[in-house]
């Protein structure tokens, strides 16, 4: 029987996060995402060189609104971001960390760019995994702290975000100068994702250094919108549109843990996080930022079986 094989025109670009000593950084290895030559896990049709990767989310301050279920795992380190990061790496085998600098937000402590840059420098010494660095969500504040952190990690090839349509220039310039990658965030909209990628690459940052944050909703809270936006963008990428051929990063943990279900029970929250991640992986997610260590362990098992590794 003749199967129906798509002849795709183009592959997703490969983004490398982290730099080893040989490459001018201090990470013990690099993490690569993207490079898919077909839709999720259709191996006979095209190569899928890198499995999806799960990053652990770590904050610079003790989160006030995290579920008590997560307290069980991080409660002892919430007040010490360095210990928190180390626990993720040592105890939970985190391959990559995502540091959210929430404490810089005017409403959450208003930490200065010096403080944040210092923290990031210490973090580089404490752990040797590649880093994702996120701002606090306040544009003017992020335009101060992110350049400082970018400089403090120069040469480490971090992934830094988020750049948005009306605030991308400062971050792009820093990322470009310091040799990092950037997260381009668009509000569940393929056209804006495309436009923003063009704007950023027009400033000289190659498309191969951009990761798209399509803005996801959790299971039961608009998941299907992101699911379809990701499918559409990926189809366009494989069909030859270079400007959306970036890997996707999905902030699964933050969305799953603020649902009502997660608030009702820890077990329900864990499954909510796992199933949100599963569906997004099937829509093409490359990097997933998650919270519950057990959920992350389960997802890593799932990814291994998907990639054909026997457990």
């Amino acid at each position: 029987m003749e199967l129906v094989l798509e002849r795709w025109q183009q592959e997703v670009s490969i983004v490398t996060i982290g730099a080893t000593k040989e490459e001018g950084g201090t990470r013990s290895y690099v993490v690569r995402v993207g490079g898919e030559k077909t839709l999720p896990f259709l191996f006979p049709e095209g190569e899928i060189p890198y499995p999806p990767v799960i990053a652990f989310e770590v904050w610079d301050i003790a989160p006030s609104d995290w579920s008590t279920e997560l307290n069980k795992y991080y409660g002892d380190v919430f007040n010490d971001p360095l210990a928190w990061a180390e626990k993720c790496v040592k105890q939970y085998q985190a391959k990559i960390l995502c540091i959210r600098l929430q404490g810089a937000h005017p409403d959450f402590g208003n930490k200065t760019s010096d403080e944040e840059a210092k923290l990031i420098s210490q973090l580089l010494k404490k752990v040797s995994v590649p880093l994702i660095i996120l701002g606090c969500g306040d544009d003017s504040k992020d335009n101060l702290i992110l350049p400082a952190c970018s400089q403090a990690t120069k040469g480490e090839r971090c992934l830094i975000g988020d750049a948005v349509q009306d605030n991308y220039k400062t971050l792009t310039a820093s990322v470009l100068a310091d040799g990092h990658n950037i997260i381009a965030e668009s509000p569940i909209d393929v056209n804006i994702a495309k436009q923003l990628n063009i704007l950023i690459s027009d400033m000289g940052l190659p498309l191969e250094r951009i990761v798209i944050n399509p803005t996801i909703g959790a299971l039961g809270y608009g998941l299907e919108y992101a699911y379809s936006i990701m499918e559409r963008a990926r189809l366009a990428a494989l069909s030859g549109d270079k400007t959306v051929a970036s890997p996707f990063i999905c902030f699964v943990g933050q969305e799953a843990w603020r649902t009502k279900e997660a608030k009702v029970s820890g077990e329900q929250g864990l499954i909510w996080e796992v199933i949100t991640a599963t569906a997004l992986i099937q829509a093409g997610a490359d990097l997933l930022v998650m919270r519950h260590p057990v959920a992350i362990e389960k997802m890593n098992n799932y990814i291994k079986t998907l990639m054909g590794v026997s457990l």
Partner: protein
Amino acid sequence: MALSGLDIYKLLPKTNCRECGFVTCLAFAMQLAKKAVSMDKCPYLSIEAKRTLAESSLPAIKLIAIGEGENKLEVGNETVMFRHEEKFHHPPGLGFIIEDNLDDSAIKKKLEKINQLKFERIGQELKVNLIAIRQNKDKNRFVEVVKLVAENTPLALVLMSEDLAAQEEALKLVGVRRPLIYHATQDNLADFAQLSKDRAVPLVVSAKELELLSTLTRELNNQAVTELVIDTGKKPIAEKIWDLTQIRRLALRKSQRSLGYPVLVIVDADDPYIETTEAATYISKYAGIVLIKGIEVERVMALLTLRQNIYSDPQKPLQIEPRVYPVGQVTNKSPVLVTTNFSLTYYTVLAEVEASKVPSYIVSVDTEGMSVLTAWAAEKFTPEKITDSINKFNVRERVAHNQLVIPGYVAVMSGDLEEKSGWEVVVGPKEAAGIPAFLKNLYL
């Protein structure tokens, strides 16, 4: 697959005799393609052409019904590869495998739990669909368990046994409930074909290879057995995704009728997380029926929610009727909260208002099913629109105060809204989760 006007034209006599009432065969073909006329209008169609035309109007993936009455499950009749292209039509049936070597009381307990797996979400009832009884022991035990299950659940049934005699016995008891029979294979095809025909019950056909599967369904079709569900057996996840994708592509894009049936997937994993993630994968990727073993509420609720998400209509967001909804024992002192008529938004707000135990009115403004921020950006949630709704729904007559709570995300419209509506605007929280605390501290 639907034929184009030109495809149809090629099948016509091309004599332009006008007997169909059209000036040319081409004109007639164009109308046929639009289904605006019946093909009977042309007296000169060849038998071959008639057959092709008739086939082209059949759905590419057959709709199969399992069960009877209220718990009937219909799967198949899908038309697209991706939900954004149109929508996925028939949500996959979710069912539970019950082994017949469990003892009776354990089976009953399980069924009790399964029967209660019903959830309400954004105004829709989410429920499970099937119980599959799997034979592990002798014929008598299988039949006994089928009887026990049938007596204790209204759900549609799947009979899993390769023992023809056991199937026949079981069907005598539950045949009227139109169970799904699992399964015909290369080795027992004739017998199971006969069984499906005699009892008028749908049949699962299994083969590892698509080629063989396709041959088997053709043979069954030749014996007039057409109520089929197909299955490619136990495989690693990625291979299963490949099979499901190929079957869907072949049916839709190559009009391969021999694979144009809903697909059954059995998830046979002992680890509950592997089971749930695998089931979620197949729900997302084209399965028609997914059978699992685990019945924990948390897992099933997550799977049913995912199914609802993936099978929702991307063109038409779920909406509720725009009006004023009293929540709890409202009085003329109850707060009035304004939101959109996007189901997800409304039900999220509703749940939090209920949780707050503060009786309130929720005014759902017609935003054509858009969420707060989207509607605001699209000018469907403006001071004018909100004012119109409040007046239209006579909110003034319901309360003796003058305060209106709006979502935190649209705080910028406060001044404008006060001016237009004459109400005093109070800015509520951005996220629904903040509503209980907000309402408790709200003094009107």
